């Protein structure tokens, strides 16, 4: 499968630039997920790769071939749309075989392909139904089947699961992950759902406001977010951000926030050596705060619990730490009461630090 490369890709509508010089390289048979809030340019990027949207600047390479001037059909790709985009007047078999029939492939081959793919997706019993006679999940599967039947080198997915209800979405996500194991193709997947991104991707590309914020494996992005946006975007509940100032007292470094003062260990001191300013942003994920009533003050923070959201085995506490909202994830059977002031200990390697002025991570 060819490597897909975006070089300084940009897109403007009139005088408004919505994509700013995107550089991206997608490896052979890699599952790349473009993720970001709505309006970040992820769908536009995908549609430009597909050839449905014109390119304002830069170039798209598939293999070594520049393709930005080519029609979609000359790019050897298949696409699954958010609203499925099935042909309403054709039955499932006709929908799936449309591309092959246009390409005038032999009837036998078409028949074989459709049967195989239908088998794989569990659509065999529905081949003669029209899209209107199918449920949402089945339509989604037909859309997937239409892409698979094509046998193209690259698969594009434009938020394929967002029109499904929550339960079906989880199920289809698992099916997608399974299909991914069997089909070794380039896949580019656009979503605003960070869970889809984390579970499916070989590589996540986080986008915001027409820029790539960070790219890497799900683990890299989760553990070492490059800036505040990425840190806050990936992970549920999202990372807490607390303003702190660095204070040096008899060659030990302390992080002082409102209501707490953490004593930095050597490693943390080392990490913060390069900070330009004494006032920084400290990030900590809700799951990294450990309920510890007996912890010493210089290794913990105190939180006033305001709301508790019960979600089964886990509960999410929303509390207040010196005027800033802090979320904590903890086991539901932990004996706590609302309005109480609770102490949570912190493991310093779980902390993330960001500059206040440009939101970049300090490392």
């Amino acid at each position, binding site marked *: 499968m060819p490597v897909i490369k975006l070089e300084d890709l940009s897109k403007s509508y009139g005088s408004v630039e919505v994509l700013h010089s995107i550089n991206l390289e997608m490896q052979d048979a890699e599952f790349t997920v473009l993720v970001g809030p709505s309006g970040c340019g992820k769908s536009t990027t995908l549609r430009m790769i*597909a*050839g*449905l949207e014109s390119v304002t600047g830069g170039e798209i390479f598939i293999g070594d071939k520049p393709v930005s001037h080519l*029609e*979609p*059909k000359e790019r050897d*790709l*298949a*696409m699954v*749309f*958010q*609203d*499925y*985009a*099935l*042909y*309403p*007047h054709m039955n499932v078999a006709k929908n799936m075989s*449309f*591309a092959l029939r*246009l*390409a005038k492939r032999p009837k036998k081959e078409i028949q074989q392909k459709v049967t195989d793919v239908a088998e794989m997706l569990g659509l065999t019993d*529905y081949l003669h*139904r*029209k899209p*209107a*006679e*199918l*449920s949402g999940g*089945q339509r989604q599967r037909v859309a997937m089947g*239409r892409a698979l039947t*094509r046998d193209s080198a690259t698969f594009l997915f434009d938020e394929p699961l967002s029109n499904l209800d929550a339960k079906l979405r989880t199920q289809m996500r698992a099916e997608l992950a399974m299909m991914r194991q069997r089909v070794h193709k380039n896949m580019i997947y656009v979503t605003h759902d960070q869970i889809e991104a984390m579970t499916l991707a070989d590589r996540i590309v986080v986008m915001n406001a027409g820029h790539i914020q960070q790219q890497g494996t799900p683990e890299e992005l989760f553990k070492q977010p490059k800036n505040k946006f990425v840190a806050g975007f990936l992970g549920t509940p999202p990372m807490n951000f607390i303003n702190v100032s660095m204070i040096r007292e008899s060659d030990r470094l302390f992080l002082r926030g409102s209501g707490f003062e953490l004593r930095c260990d050597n490693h943390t001191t080392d990490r913060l050596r390069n900070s330009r300013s004494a006032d920084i942003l400290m990030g900590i994920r809700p799951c990294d705060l450990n309920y510890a009533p007996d912890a010493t003050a210089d290794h913990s923070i105190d939180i006033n619990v305001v709301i508790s959201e019960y979600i089964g085995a886990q509960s999410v506490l929303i509390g207040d730490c010196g005027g800033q909202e802090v979320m904590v994830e903890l086991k539901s059977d932990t004996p706590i009461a609302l309005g109480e002031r609770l102490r949570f200990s912190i493991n310093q390697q779980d902390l993330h630090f960001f500059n206040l002025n440009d939101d970049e991570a300090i490392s």
Partner: protein
Amino acid sequence: MTSVGSFIMNKATANRFTPYIFLLPAAVIMVLALLYPLGYMIYGSFRDWDPSQSLTESTFVGLKNYITLWNDPNFRESTLVTLKFAISVVTFEMIIGVGLALLLDRNLRGMSVLRTLFILPMMIAPVVVGLIWRYMYHPTLGVFNRGLKSVGLESVDWLGQHALLSVIIADIWQWTPFIFILALAALQSLPRSALEAARIDGATGWQQIIHIKLPLMMPVLIVTCLLRLIDAFKVLEVILVMTEGGPGLSTEIMALRISRTATEFRELGVAAAMSNYLLIMLLMLTVLMLVYNRYMEYRASRAMLAARGA
């Protein structure tokens, strides 16, 4: 006393009739304006009826008017002309109208102005359209023949030798816009993403039209076609002004023949019978349209049920 009592007892029943009381005025108007003349016409068609007589003075002749007409070569000729006219104008209007819509279904600058210009012919009064075209077809003064002459070609006897063709052209000019705007509306309501999917699947412009756009527009196109067909069967003014049915019977469409039978030949009964023949033809078309609509609804509801069951 008992009647008042039962009236009060039946208040609930009375309430149920309230909607019909409100419907009554409309029903009365409908009976007066539609059913009464229609009944009058049907009744008259069975009588030998001169305009100087009142309908009651006329004599009952049974099916004589219908049978006379059935065997009248002139009436048959007129029916044939009507069929030729209606079928050819609707065919050409559909092809040109849908073709234009397919061409102009894009975001051109000034598209809204263009669209308004396109539908102008439809907004002109038919009599005026007839007059305009009559002058344009004039053997010596008309713009067509002067144009032909200025490039050194023979002039054409538009409203003489080619009268039917000439009125067909005028009708196409006037009514293509009707098809055009409906086809354009149908096109613009097509699902965009299905067309994008077709592009990715490798469909060329033509293939998109043939495999996706036309099949999806078909329900609208069929209804449009039938509406236009019904209208074309009833056309009168334009032809009346342009040719008065001539020369000979070459452009004497049914509506024209009906009006002449009534006024010139003073045979109201025959004219009424003729109107009924036309009405029957139009009814058949209308029923066809209704059946088609019902069929589509039935299919849609079956599809819904199947989806819910799945």
